[in-house]
């Protein structure tokens, strides 16, 4: 980064954004910054066209059959809430996993506390992976959906989604995929993987701004509206517009966010998913291998980096993770994320529920020098005696 900060928190949000993305976003917003799909003047129609092109681009990106079912939301959490509120009814059952983010756990828990649904969680093994058979065993006659995080935001492990998708299809249960940590670094194919819906966020590996994400819905999945309002069409009808994408979108769209997201996806496609992922995993490998001989450092689920995204979570023996993060920040200009990462049950699985951990997530713009400096920093203070 230009100010000297070594930013290793790309799992929270990618930073910096590619300059070309920011420039294109602002340029197009200067040209088109009116209410999309709400007026009949040319500029409003052009803005509406830009939104529709973004839907088409995202449908291609996720291997979705119908661009009109690309629904914009604020982020992946918002998109997942759209799905849960639009699908779940009293008496329903849901299967999720221990690796879920609170974007899944909290809605499900809230629904259960209200007496609406029940849910079961498939456990992860000691390496951070879900066994698809554990999901199959939890499916019941009233299971309304299965929801799975593609890549753990704590452990970085990529789950076997195509296998889980086949199982869900065999049981006739929709599968919703949370791609918050995967979209932009590894491919997602909605049709091949039998996905009923894909929740994504724009501000992580898709290089868009914060505040934009979405839900890509398969035509076979009938999600009801859970929020209502203006859609720009059929205004005499006091019932909310039933057709997609308007069914799940109410109010003026985040045009700036959509333009930025679209520019970000374009950038990812230009660079290539394989190139991006390979670069990030080379950094991960260097980081993991550099830390391994140090001792005093406990890494979680990093023995093998196969089927991983670039997330490495660790603790320094004898130190509180918050203090490790503070030292890295103030003494070494390194930004890493400490705590529970909004995924408490993942931390429970690896034994860090009580104290949390330090998460490093290199991104496409990190260098080997960044990684070496992080290794040197951890080496310099991890081995000395601590009070705790």
């Amino acid at each position, binding site marked *: 980064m230009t100010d000297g900060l070594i930013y290793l928190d790309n799992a929270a949000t990618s930073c910096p954004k590619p300059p070309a993305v920011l420039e294109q976003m602002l340029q197009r917003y200067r040209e088109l910054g009116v209410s999309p799909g709400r007026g009949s003047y040319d500029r409003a129609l052009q803005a509406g066209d830009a939104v529709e092109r973004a839907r088409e681009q995202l449908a291609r990106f996720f291997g979705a059959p119908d661009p009109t079912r690309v629904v914009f939301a604020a982020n992946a959490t918002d998109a997942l809430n759209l799905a849960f509120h639009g699908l779940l009814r009293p008496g329903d059952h849901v299967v999720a996993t221990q690796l879920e983010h609170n974007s899944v756990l909290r809605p499900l828990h809230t629904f259960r506390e209200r007496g609406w649904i029940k849910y079961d969680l498939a456990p992860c093994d000691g390496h951070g992976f879900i066994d698809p058979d554990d999901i199959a065993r939890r499916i019941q006659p009233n299971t309304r959906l299965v929801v799975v995080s593609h890549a753990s935001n704590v452990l970085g492990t990529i789950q076997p989604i195509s296998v889980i998708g086949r199982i869900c299809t065999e049981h006739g249960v929709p599968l919703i995929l949370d791609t918050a940590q995967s979209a932009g670094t590894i491919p997602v194919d909605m049709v091949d993987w039998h996905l009923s819906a894909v929740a994504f966020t724009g501000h992580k590996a898709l290089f868009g701004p914060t505040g934009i994400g979405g839900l890509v819905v398969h035509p076979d999945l009938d999600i009801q509206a859970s929020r209502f309002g203006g859609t720009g069409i059929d205004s005499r009808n006091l019932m909310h517009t039933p057709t997609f994408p308007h069914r799940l979108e109410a109010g003026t769209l985040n045009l700036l966010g959509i333009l930025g997201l679209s520019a970000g996806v374009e950038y990812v496609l230009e660079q290539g998913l394989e190139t991006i992922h390979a670069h990030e995993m080379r950094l991960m490998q260097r980081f993991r291998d550099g830390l391994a001989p140090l001792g005093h450092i406990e890494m979680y689920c990093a023995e093998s980096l196969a089927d991983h995204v670039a997330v490495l979570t660790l603790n320094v023996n004898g130190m*509180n993770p918050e203090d490790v993060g503070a030292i890295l920040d*103030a*003494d070494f200009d390194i930004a890493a*994320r400490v705590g529970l990462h909004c995924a408490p049950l993942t931390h429970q699985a690896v034994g860090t529920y009580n104290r949390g951990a330090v998460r490093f997530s290199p991104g496409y713009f990190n260098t080997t020098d960044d990684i070496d400096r992080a290794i040197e920093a951890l080496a310099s203070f991890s081995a000395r*005696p601590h009070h705790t």
Partner: protein
Amino acid sequence: MPDEPSRAAQYPELGRVTRVLAGREVLFDQEGFFWEAKDWTEDMATILIRESGLADLTEIHWKVLRFFREYYFYHGRAPMNRHLKDGTKLSLQVLESLFPGGIRLGARRLAGLPNPKSCF
């Protein structure tokens, strides 16, 4: 102006523990942080450091605790990492090693500042 809600009302999930310290009844959260920074006294800090395993607070400990408190009451929040480093003229590595429990559970707690609301 309406009274600000107490920290106990704002953060009920942290739980509360009452104990008598330096002759006064004081409210702590379950991690041992003061509920109210104004309840803190130097005598209390001295007792707490002994409970942590150190015989006493040295001048450098007091320098850190006073910086925390002065900053908190002036700015209305705890110092950010770089402010802490600049204000104490100590690297955070050194500061962490000075206090049993380190920076957050050691220094900040002993200074009587509230439990930070990080991602826990």
